[in-house]
């Protein structure tokens, strides 16, 4: 599935230029990232047809190409025929309808089956909420209902517009878990919009950055998160300061630690959720500040994970800090260390080094 966005959008002082293709190889979550007020919402509204643009918007399916917008042939597929569902920061549930009727509104206007309904209500644990008025819901509950409503409209594309922004910490974790679960269950292409770096790290497959240039907002080409985290030319490099390691869960559990394979080395994860105890690929997100370097594989530390690698890049981020890139079994890990440690350890390029990862920093995502 692919979305071709070649358009520009002008509204009062605001000007946005987009010349990108967003492609979902397998159903996954691509994140649109940019700071508040840069025009993320306008960009989305152009995609779902609520905002007028100049240019062309195409949707490519496995079998066909749909013209959603093309100013040269004056084609403008109205919003309700594009089948792009949205979940908003403030949920936007219909206040005159109950939870059940809100979801039914979408259900009755789509080709969703009774089985889809059952599965969705169950996955999002909405059963006990069905009779509620929307005003009675907490933020997290309302967001779950909004998710169910969007999914049961059977969209081609699901857009989540800062869905966690108005929630408290606990509700954020819950909704985030549900979003990951949905992605696995329904295999929908998702566009997730946020200005929160942590949400990008937790969810993104590819990242589409929105950037302010002198006169306009520019949409950068989508790039894999794992790649831009290592690319010191990309603006996300300094924002993320993290690395992603893809490891294979072997299913072996020893002393409450799950053993995962990274090439020939083992990473031990504390307490992964039960469904992850079988063999599978896990994505680990590791903050550069949680990675320290050592010249030997010290046995006398509380750190559980010590891996061997080779230094492939050294960046001086400022006067007292260095960013060190270490290649471990072909995957890149960033470590942020002080200038003091850098000098003490006499760090050099291509040197073999041991990285220590604080166990707690290992976070399984998607």
């Amino acid at each position, binding site marked *: 599935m692919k979305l071709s966005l070649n358009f520009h959008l002008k509204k009062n002082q605001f000007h946005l230029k987009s010349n990108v293709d967003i492609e979902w190889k397998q159903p996954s979550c691509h994140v649109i990232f940019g700071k508040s007020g840069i025009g993320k919402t306008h960009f989305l509204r152009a995609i*779902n047809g609520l905002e007028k643009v100049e240019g062309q918007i195409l949707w490519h399916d496995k079998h066909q190409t749909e013209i959603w917008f093309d100013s040269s042939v004056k084609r403008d597929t109205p*919003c309700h025929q594009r*089948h792009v569902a949205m979940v908003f920061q403030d949920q936007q549930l219909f206040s005159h309808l109950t939870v059940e009727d809100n979801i039914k509104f979408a259900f009755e206007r789509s080709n969703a089956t009774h089985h889809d309904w059952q599965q969705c209500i169950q996955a999002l644990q909405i059963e006990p909420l069905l009779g509620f008025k929307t005003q009675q819901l907490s933020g997290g509950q309302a967001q779950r209902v909004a998710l169910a409503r969007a999914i049961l409209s059977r969209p081609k594309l699901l857009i989540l517009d800062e869905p966690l922004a108005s929630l408290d910490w606990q509700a954020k974790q819950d909704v985030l878990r549900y979003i990951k679960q949905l992605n696995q269950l329904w295999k929908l292409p998702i566009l997730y919009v946020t200005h929160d770096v942590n949400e990008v790290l937790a969810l993104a497959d590819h990242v589409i950055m929105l950037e302010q240039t002198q006169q306009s907002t520019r949409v950068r080409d989508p790039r894999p998160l794992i790649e831009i985290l290592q690319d010191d030319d990309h603006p996300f490099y300094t924002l993320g300061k993290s690395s992603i390691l893809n490891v294979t869960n072997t299913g072996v559990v020893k002393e409450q630690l799950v053993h995962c394979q990274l090439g020939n080395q083992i990473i031990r994860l504390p307490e992964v959720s039960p469904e992850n105890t079988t063999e599978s690929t896990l994505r680990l997100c590791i903050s550069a500040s949680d990675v320290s370097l050592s010249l030997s594989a010290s046995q006398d530390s509380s750190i559980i994970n010590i891996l061997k690698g080779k230094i492939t890049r050294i960046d001086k981020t400022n006067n007292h800090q260095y960013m060190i890139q270490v290649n471990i079994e072909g995957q890149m890990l960033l470590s942020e260390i002080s200038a003091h440690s850098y000098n003490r350890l006499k760090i050099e390029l291509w040197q073999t080094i041991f990285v220590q990862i604080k166990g707690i920093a290992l976070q399984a995502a998607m």
Partner: protein
Amino acid sequence: MDALFLTLKLAFFSTLILIIIATPIAWFLAHSRFKAKFILEALLALPLVLPPTVLGFYLLIALGPQGPGGWLASLWGEQTLAFSFTGLLIGSVIYSLPFVVQPLQNGFSLIGKKPLEVAYTLNANFFDAFRHIILPLAKPAYISAATLGFAHTLGEFGVVLMIGGNIPNETQVISIKIFEHVELLEYQQAHILSAILLGISFVMLAFIYASRHRQKAGVL
């Protein structure tokens, strides 16, 4: 009692027509970004400030044999729409239009475009979304608009006097009848009819305010 029945009939049909034509006008005024819409707004508010006689005078001309009303009447073999129930209906619709448009416009503005757009993203087209989302959300506004339109038509006098005349069962509404009774010094009958009109109007206004309070309390 014929006058009372005629008045209620006139108010009922006026309100019905008003609700139908005020809906698109109010929607347009609430949501259009058309720059010159203030002209339409001013035009619609005219009945609020003009003496009913002025409005009635223009209507008389328009409905008469030389006006568009006369042409319309010629379609079914009449000469004029003035001094007929149809003419009265047209007159009261115009006269009461702002009282129906304004509550609806406020209601639509308050609801905003967002619920409609959300409905679009859930595969609903405009009419579907309007029928199932906007109309129910605007229910309080419709109750206000209909009640105000009805009550205002009940109290109409000047316009009717100009274009309706005083034909029993055709154009002799209650306010005209009261006027006639007073002129003939029949104070007894004038008292009865006035009291009825007062009662109906009070009950209807009380109904509007009660529903507004309930709405604030979140019952509606």
